[in-house]
């Protein structure tokens, strides 16, 4: 495998990893925040709208 195609493969994998990683991490943080807040907020106020 030449150096150029090595870079290419790394960059392609990297792009997919960054995309999935960042969105996944954000999603996890939002969901965890929601669970944590749900414990604080009384049940009758937990419904949106």
């Amino acid at each position, binding site marked *: 495998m030449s150096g150029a195609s090595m870079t290419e493969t790394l960059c392609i994998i990297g792009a997919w990893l*960054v995309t999935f990683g960042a*969105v996944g991490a954000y999603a996890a943080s939002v969901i965890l925040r929601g669970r944590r807040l749900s414990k604080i907020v009384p049940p009758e106020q937990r*419904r*949106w709208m």
Partner: protein
Amino acid sequence: MTTTKTESLSTVPAAPTGTGSRGTRVLGAVALLFLVIAVAYGLLISPPDAQLGNTIRIIYMHVPTVMAAYLAFLITAVSSGMYLWKRTEFWDLLGSSAAEIGVLFFAVTIVDGALWGKVTWGVFWRWEPRLTTSAVLLIMYIGYLAVRAIPADPKTRATRCAIIGLVAVVNIPIVHKAVDWWRGLHQGKTVLGTIDPEMGGTQLFAMYSALVAGILVCVWLLIHRFRAGFLAERASDLGLDQALEERRLESSPAQGADS
């Protein structure tokens, strides 16, 4: 939002323990399905592009994220306008949730674009119109989030954010025009960020499934983020009734407390 409808139809209201609901789970599953298809076609099945070679596989990620980001900013803009008109918490929360998600997708877009540049040009950054525009817009919306993060009266904060949301969105076409002219004079049309109509069938399929997946994930995130924001507001309201009670009590012990 459609999910709430599903929510209210579902069997009776045990209080939710998080931001999920039947609606979001269905939506999430569909999004996941498209993601799997996108991975399968985008990374494995579809052949390299005639012109772009394997770097087209980065474009499969780049285009959906930028579309999701623009969708999110569009939602922020509409919500900002609606907030200034209706002044309801719903529009404020929707707008700020969308802005956060837009920033996330935009940041990812820029990283993907830089990686594509590394392969294609040998450098991470070139002053390519789309990358430049995205960088400027990203910083603009980081400013929005910075103002959002300043503790303030909810109404004040909502108004500030709505104003920034509107001011920022009208800048998007102007930045595009300016940057296109700025660079367009030196370079031909770039491939980055456009869907080439000459693409082959499997490539087109990979692209569109990634696009659908991106949009679905964006909406799914938005619902969760909205609900988390709603819960956060309720959590900070918690003290309110109590504070009102305490405030009234202040007056009772000190009868006619003059001077």
